[in-house]
């Protein structure tokens, strides 16, 4: 809860600052865009949060996004598959990838970093191979399917041309609610948290830790798959060698900003989504405030670093203050009871 306060405060701060400096920030159009991008990145961030909670990592997310996006465009435009079949197929592929990661990590006891680093290379290569390294696009066909990514749902009661919810935001909300319920209310979620902190303890409690871990990797890859579909539909033009590059780092950064510990066992869905929002709002602010693009990286890096440092210092300060308070209370007690 406290963790969310901190990152939430940061989000509000950046929003208010940007809004004051440039009121266009709070224009309907911009809010919709920011919400849409937050949603797209939010989907993959929520996914990776599950893996991070198990104490693992997934470096292959960007490549899965690339593979799924390329495959989707390829199946639709080159192979003439129907939209539902193609979407089902690519999600199945991402599911398979998740299972593969999970099996390699649990059954062969390979390290997540290594397995998913290989994945990063493999799936990128696969995307390029399948599409023969050709750019693909949906053109103007598939406008229906594309509404998944760029559609907007008007809010009942509001004028037609005013704020409408981007469809990806709804998708994120659905995913987030399912994820939050899964994590906090179901036994699997509890098992995830338990094994993330102490795998032996979980195993000794009769939990099939391997199975739960595999589930986490599947969730992560399938989220990346959903993200891949949305990204591909959104940009409408897919370059197999580039789509999704580095997205794993954004997703992991969002999760860490949002309070997930890479040591495992810690994390909330709300936090992760706020983390993703902070990153997107920062990008947006940099553009809106006409800060040169080449400062972008430096600013984002500095904000994340400042965020984690503050978090750490606040934690320490809290510990110290508690100790001091205790000491003071005891001394007051002593003073009132003369020895």
């Amino acid at each position, binding site marked *: 809860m406290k963790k969310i306060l901190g990152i939430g405060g940061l989000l509000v701060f950046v929003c208010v600052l940007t809004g004051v400096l440039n009121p266009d920030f709070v224009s309907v159009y911009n809010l919709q865009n920011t919400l849409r991008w937050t949603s797209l990145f939010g989907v993959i961030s929520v996914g990776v949060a599950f893996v991070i909670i198990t104490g693992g990592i997934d470096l292959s997310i960007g490549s899965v996004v690339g593979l799924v996006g390329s495959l989707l465009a390829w199946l639709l435009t080159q192979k003439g598959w129907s939209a539902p079949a193609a979407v089902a197929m690519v999600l199945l592929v991402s599911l398979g990838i998740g299972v593969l990661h999970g099996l390699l990590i649990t059954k062969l006891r390979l390290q997540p970093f290594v397995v998913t680093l290989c994945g990063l290379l493999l799936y990128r290569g696969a995307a390029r191979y399948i599409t023969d390294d050709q750019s693909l696009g949906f053109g103007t066909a598939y406008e229906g399917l594309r509404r998944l990514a760029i559609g907007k749902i008007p809010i009942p009661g509001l004028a037609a041309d005013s704020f409408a919810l981007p469809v990806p935001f709804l998708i994120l909300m659905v995913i987030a609610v399912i994820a939050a319920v899964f994590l906090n209310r*179901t036994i699997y979620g*509890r*098992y995830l*948290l*338990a094994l*993330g*902190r*102490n795998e032996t303890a979980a195993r*000794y409690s*009769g939990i099939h830790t391997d199975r739960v871990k595999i589930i986490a990797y599947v969730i992560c890859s399938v989220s990346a798959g959903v993200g891949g579909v949305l990204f591909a539909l959104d940009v409408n033009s897919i370059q197999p060698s580039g789509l999704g590059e580095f997205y794993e780092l954004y997703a992991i950064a969002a999760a860490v900003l949002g309070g997930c510990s890479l040591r495992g066992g810690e994390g909330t869905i709300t936090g992760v989504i706020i983390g993703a929002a902070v990153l997107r709002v920062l990008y947006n602010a940099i553009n809106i405030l006409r800060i040169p693009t080449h400062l972008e990286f430096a600013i984002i890096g500095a904000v994340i670093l400042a965020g984690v440092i503050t978090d750490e210092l606040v934690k320490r300060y809290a510990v110290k203050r508690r100790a001091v308070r205790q000491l003071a209370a005891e001394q007051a007690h002593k003073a009132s009871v003369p020895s």
Partner: protein
Amino acid sequence: MVDASAAPLLEVRQLSKRFPGVLALRSVSLRVLPGEVLAVIGENGAGKSTLMKILAGVQKPDTGEVLLDGRPVEINSVREAIGLGIVLIHQELNLSDNLDIGANIFLGREPRRCGLIDKQRIFRESQPLLARIGLEQSPRTLVNQLAIGQQQMVEIAKALSSQARVLIMDEPTSSLSQHEAEQLFRVVHQLRSNGVSIVYISHRLGEVRELADRVVVLRDGENAGELAREEICHDQMVKLMVGRDVSQFYQHQLHAPGPLALEVRGVRTLAHARHSIDLQVHAGEIVGLAGLVGAGRTELLRAIFGVDPMLGGEIRVAGQSVRVSHPRDAIQAGIGLVPEDRKEQGLVLEMAVRENLSLPSLRRDQTRGFLNREREADITRQMIGDLRIKTPGPEQIVQFLSGGNQQKVVLGKWLAMNPKVLLLDEPTRGIDVGAKREIYRLMEELADKGVAVLFVSSEMEEILGMSDRALVMHEGRITGELQREELSEEAVMNLATGGGRNPAGVSQ
């Protein structure tokens, strides 16, 4: 009393289990009668935990069978074991400390409503369990806010909650305070009278004597004998465990204290910031530091050794004031520490005996930053010889040594430094009788050579048997000092529970 001829509830026949490098169990047999407390004892590495893990479904045997109610059963997983009513409290703590007490108690068996976890029910059902074991905490408290002993109690509550028919406790009291342990014994008696069978493993033979209806002894992975209720006595148990008579456990003679070696003045520790501590240890003296778990003894040793920051005060070694802000400062001043947690703090488990033995002395023996390999080899050879470390060679990975020999390696690290002051924190915890004796002998030898020895122990016998002088702590301060002739169980307990002497009279 239990009828010894009754049909066993649980029976183990000819069980064998091999690990890479060790035959942990060779055709071990065991019978657990309904409603009895069966103690299983044996030296470190005798195979006790392995046998229990097999029964609990954590590990699988290579050969042999397990019978429940006379019927052979196959236990493939923890879940199946729990289903059969066999529940194990592990030797090490196994909790997820990011979750609350209730969540840990019901981990793996969460009650559900509409597919979701029924948190209310968990809290409702946890409360009486906690009350039963005397843990005064809300089930919603996070486990990482509990002291170690309390966490162990959570483990016990967890085991109780699963309605076991056979409850196995693997060294449950090793981190419990006297009070908590007594609470546990009450629970054990209660369970027994409810017909639950209990398998109780402990190195504390006093407890075994107190609790057990029957004792089974393992040695080197084999059945070494069995004692009926009336045969249970300390010497018998030891004899079966080590395979020979062991008389004269503590061969203590009073040492003549030399000059002041370690002086602690007004030291405050983080855990107990409100009390300052003064103590003195002379060269050639063995001082015991007694107290209940959580009394702040470890904290004190850690502060002296520079692991934790001191909140004030002064430390003098051989009359010289030393500033310790890191273990290296303490080591340079001639202090060594055999820490409480051997595997976490004392040893680099995956490294060789040689590398562990030489770790603190590398710096002293360096030539411009380079390793002095001859010196390292010398030290290794000497320590393996002097301490009689049982190892196939200096390159053996420490992990594969038995607990006692591991502890000797830790001791050897410091002996190679020729310390003026040696601090030992629970030097014999979890170590079998044979190894214990050797450790005691070493402590004596060191004192004879003029080393100041300060050791922490939670075992009364050890404090009584080994100390020239004992200091007793209670809630972060030293509540009393007892000379050799004043030492008695009552005197120590009295001070340890905060009663007794006026603390003002301490350490003058």
